[in-house]
C-alpha cells in the first residue's frame, strides 16, 4: 500500500473514531408513518462502519482509490443529479441485463459518491433479494434478522432497518437473507409502501435501489413500476448487445435515465 493510501486510511480511521456516530441523520416528521410493529426497535439508525480495507476489498471507493475511478463515479453522479433535478426524480433503480455485471458496486459507489462529494443525502436500498450484496459489500449486515425481507413480511419497520455505514449522509437499507421468492416479495403492497414511504419520508434524498438483473427474472420488471428512473449497468466485454436491447425493451425506454458502461477498458 502506498504512503498516500496509508495516510488516507489513517485519517479515515481517526475520523471514524470521532465520528459522531450520531452523525446525524435527520429524520423528517413522519406524517404518514405507520405504527411500528411490536418488534420494532428504537427509531435510531444503526451505525455500522466498515473499514477502508473491507471497502477496498469490495471495490468500494475509499480515499486511496484511484483518481480516474473516482472521477468516473463523479461524472456519473453529476449527470444523474442533473437529470433528476430537472425531472424531479428521487427514486432510482440500478439494474443490469445479466448477472454479475457490477450493479451492486455501481449502486453502492454511486450512493457513496452522492453522500460524500455532493453532500446530498442518499438512501441505498438492497432490493436484490435473490442475491443480496450491499450489506456484505459495505460490511453492514451484522444482524441476519434485520433486512429488507423482514420489512416486507411485516416483521420490522423501515426505521428499524436503516443502517449508517459510517459515511455522512448515507443510509443503507440492506437485505440480509437470500430468498427465491423475491418477485413475490417485491410485488407486495409492503414494497410499494416502502417506496412510497421513502419518497415521503425523504423527499430531498436520493433513494437508490440495487435490483436483480432484468433478463430471466421478473423482479426488476415488477419493481421498475415503483421508481422514477432506471440506470442500466452493462459490463464491457461481457454484456451482449442483444441482452442490452432486450433489457431496454423489457424495462421501457421512457424510464431509463441512462446506461453505465462498467469495467470500461481505458484505452
Amino acid at each position: 500500500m502506498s504512503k498516500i493510501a496509508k495516510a488516507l486510511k489513517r485519517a479515515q480511521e481517526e475520523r471514524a473514531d470521532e465520528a459522531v456516530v450520531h452523525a446525524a441523520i435527520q429524520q423528517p416528521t413522519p406524517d404518514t408513518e405507520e405504527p411500528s410493529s411490536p418488534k420494532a426497535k428504537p427509531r435510531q439508525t444503526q451505525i455500522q462502519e466498515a473499514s477502508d480495507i473491507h471497502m477496498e476489498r469490495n471495490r468500494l471507493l475509499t480515499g486511496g482509490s484511484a483518481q480516474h475511478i473516482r472521477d468516473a463515479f463523479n461524472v456519473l453522479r453529476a449527470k444523474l443529479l442533473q437529470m433528476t433535478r430537472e425531472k424531479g426524480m428521487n427514486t432510482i433503480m440500478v439494474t443490469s441485463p445479466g448477472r454479475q455485471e457490477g450493479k451492486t458496486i455501481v449502486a453502492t459507489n454511486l450512493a457513496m459518491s452522492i453522500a460524500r462529494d455532493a453532500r446530498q443525502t442518499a438512501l441505498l436500498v438492497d432490493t436484490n433479494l435473490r442475491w443480496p450484496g450491499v450489506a456484505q459489500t459495505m460490511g453492514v449486515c451484522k444482524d441476519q434478522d434485520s433486512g429488507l425481507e423482514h420489512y416486507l413480511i411485516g416483521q420490522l419497520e423501515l426505521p428499524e432497518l436503516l443502517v449508517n455505514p459510517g459515511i455522512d449522509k448515507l443510509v443503507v437499507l440492506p437485505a440480509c437473507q437470500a430468498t427465491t421468492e423475491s418477485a413475490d416479495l417485491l410485488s407486495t403492497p409492503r414494497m410499494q409502501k416502502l417506496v412510497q414511504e421513502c419518497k415521503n419520508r425523504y423527499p430531498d434524498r436520493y433513494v437508490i435501489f440495487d435490483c436483480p438483473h432484468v433478463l430471466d427474472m421478473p423482479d426488476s420488471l415488477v419493481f421498475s413500476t415503483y421508481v422514477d428512473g432506471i440506470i442500466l449497468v452493462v459490463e464491457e466485454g461481457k454484456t451482449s448487445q442483444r441482452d442490452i436491447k432486450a433489457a431496454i425493451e423489457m424495462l421501457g425506454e421512457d424510464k431509463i435515465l441512462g446506461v453505465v458502461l462498467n469495467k470500461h477498458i481505458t484505452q
Partner: protein
Amino acid sequence: METHNEITLYINAFKRRKWLFAVPAATLFLLASLLIFILPSIYTSSATILVEGQEVPQELIQSTVTGYVEERLQSISQMAFSRKNLKSIIDRFGLYSEYKDSLTSEEILAKMRENIKVENIQADVVSNTGRPSTATIAFTIAFDGKYPKQVMQTTNALVSLFLEENLREREEKALTTYEFLNKQLDQLREEVQASEARIAIFKEEHYRSLPELMELNLQTLDRIQKDIDARQEMIKTLMDRKVYLEGQMATVDQTMYSYSADGSRIMTPEEELKALRSQYLASKTSRSEKHPDMIKLKGQIDLLEKELAARRRATEGDAELESWRRQLAALEKKYTAKHPDVINARGKIAELEAELASSQNSDMVLKADKGLDKENPAYINLKTQVQATTLEIRNERNVMAELRKKYDDYVGYIEQSPQVEQEYATLQRDYQNSSAKYQETMQKVLAARQAQELEKEHVSEKLSLVEPPVMPEKPYKPKRMLLVVVAFILSIGFGIGLVAVAEFMDHSVHGRDMLTTLVNAPVLASIPYVQTSEEVAQQKKHRVMILTTSASIFAGIVLAVHLFVIPIDVAFFKIVDKLQMVI
C-alpha cells in the same frame, strides 16, 4: 471519418485482445523457430550435361534416333534411374542407412527418386524453318542428401549411368532400325521377284496382245491389209491376163504347125482323146463293149486321160514351184532363215520338187510328153502362159488366204488387247509398287546403316559432361533465416486471425461509442475496472513471472542455436560482418 472510426475500432479491438494476439503468435513463432533450427541440413551436388548436336551435317546423314530432346532425356532418365541401378547405388554408397529399419526398400527408392532432380536448361534458338523457338541445350542432374561427400559420389554415379544409358540406347535404336529395315527389304525383294515372275508368265501367255505391241500389231495389220489388197489386185490382173491369154489361145490352132512325117497333122492328146471318144461312141452303136476294138479304144481313152491329167499336174506343179521359188527369194531378202515364213516356203518348195520328181519318174507322163513338140509353138506358148497365170493366181490365192488368216489372228490380238492391258497394268502396277517400296527401303537401309555407323563412331548427337559434380561446401536447404521470417509472418497472421475470430465470435459491447450507437438512452459514465490491492499485487507477480519465463525461453533458444546450429560468438561476428556489408 467513417474510415477513421473503423480504424479506431480495429485498433481498440487489437488493444483489447493484445494478449490473445501476442501469446499464441509468440508461442507459434518460438515453436516454428525451434523446428527450423532442428531441421537437418540438406546438401546438393549437381552436374551439367551439354546436349551436343550431330558432328556430321544432318543433310548428309540423318540419325535414326529422332524426337524431342526432352522426351529422350525423360526416357533415358527412366531407364537410367531404374530400380536395379538405384538399388546398386544405394548399396554402394550406403545411402539412407538410417531408414533401413523403418522403411521398405520401395519407400527408400521413392525417397531417392525424390532427391534426384533432372532439370532442362533451355535457350531461344532459331529452328530450321526460321522461326524462333525454345530448345533444350543442356540439363542438370542433382542429388540431395545429408552428407556432402556421399551426395557428390552419388551424383557422379548418376551422371555416369545417364551417359552410359544414352549411348547404349542410341546404339540399340540404330541397330534395331537397321535390322528392321533389312528384314523388310528381304520381304520386299521376294515380292518384287514374285511380281517379275508373274509378269514374265503373263507376257509369254499374251505375247501378241501386250499393250506395248499394240502399235506394232496395228502396223502389221495395216501391212497385211495392204498385202491382201495387193494380192487381190494381182489376182485380178492375173485373171484378166488369163482371160486374155485364153482368148489368144482360142485364136491359135493347136496343130497349125504340127504335122507328122507322113504329112498328116499330129493331133494333140486332147484332140486325140476327143477323136477316140467320138470313135468309141460311133463304134458303140455297132459293136459291143467287149469287142477287142472297143476294149482297145477304151484303153487308149483311159491312157490319154491319165496322160493329160499327169501333164496338167506337171505343168501346174512347175508353175507353183517357180512361184514359190520367187517368193522364197523375196522372203530371204527380208527375213532370216529361221523366220517361219522362210521355213514354210522352203518346206513347200521341197514338197513340190518331190512331187514333180515323182511325177517325172512316172512312165505315163514321160510317154505323154513325147508328143508335145508336135504342137503349135505359139499355142504351146500361150498355153504355158495360161497355165503359169493359173498357177500364179492359185498361188496368190493361197498367199491371200494365209494373209487373211494372219489378218484375223492380228485382229484377235488387237481385240484381246484391252483385257490383256488391264491385267498387264495390274501386274505392272503391283510390280512398280513393290519395286518402288523396295527402292525406298533400300535407301532407308543404306541410311540406317550410315546412322548405325554414326552411332558406333559417336559422331551423332551426344551428351557431354561440362560441369562434373563437386562436393558441396554448405547446405542449400533449409534456408533457415528465410524460414524464420516466414514463420514470423505466419505467427503474426495466426495471432491476427485469432483476434479476428475472437472479435467475430464476440457479440458483447465494447467501448462507449458502440454503446452510444446501440441504445437511445445516454451513456451516463464509463466506469473503469475497480481493482483491489490484492489484484494489483497479483498482476505485478504475473508480470514478473512472464518476464522470467520469456528470459528463460530466450536463453534456451540461444543455447539451442549455440549447440545445434552455430556457436553464438561466430553467429555474432557473422551478423556484425553482414551489417557492416550492408552499411
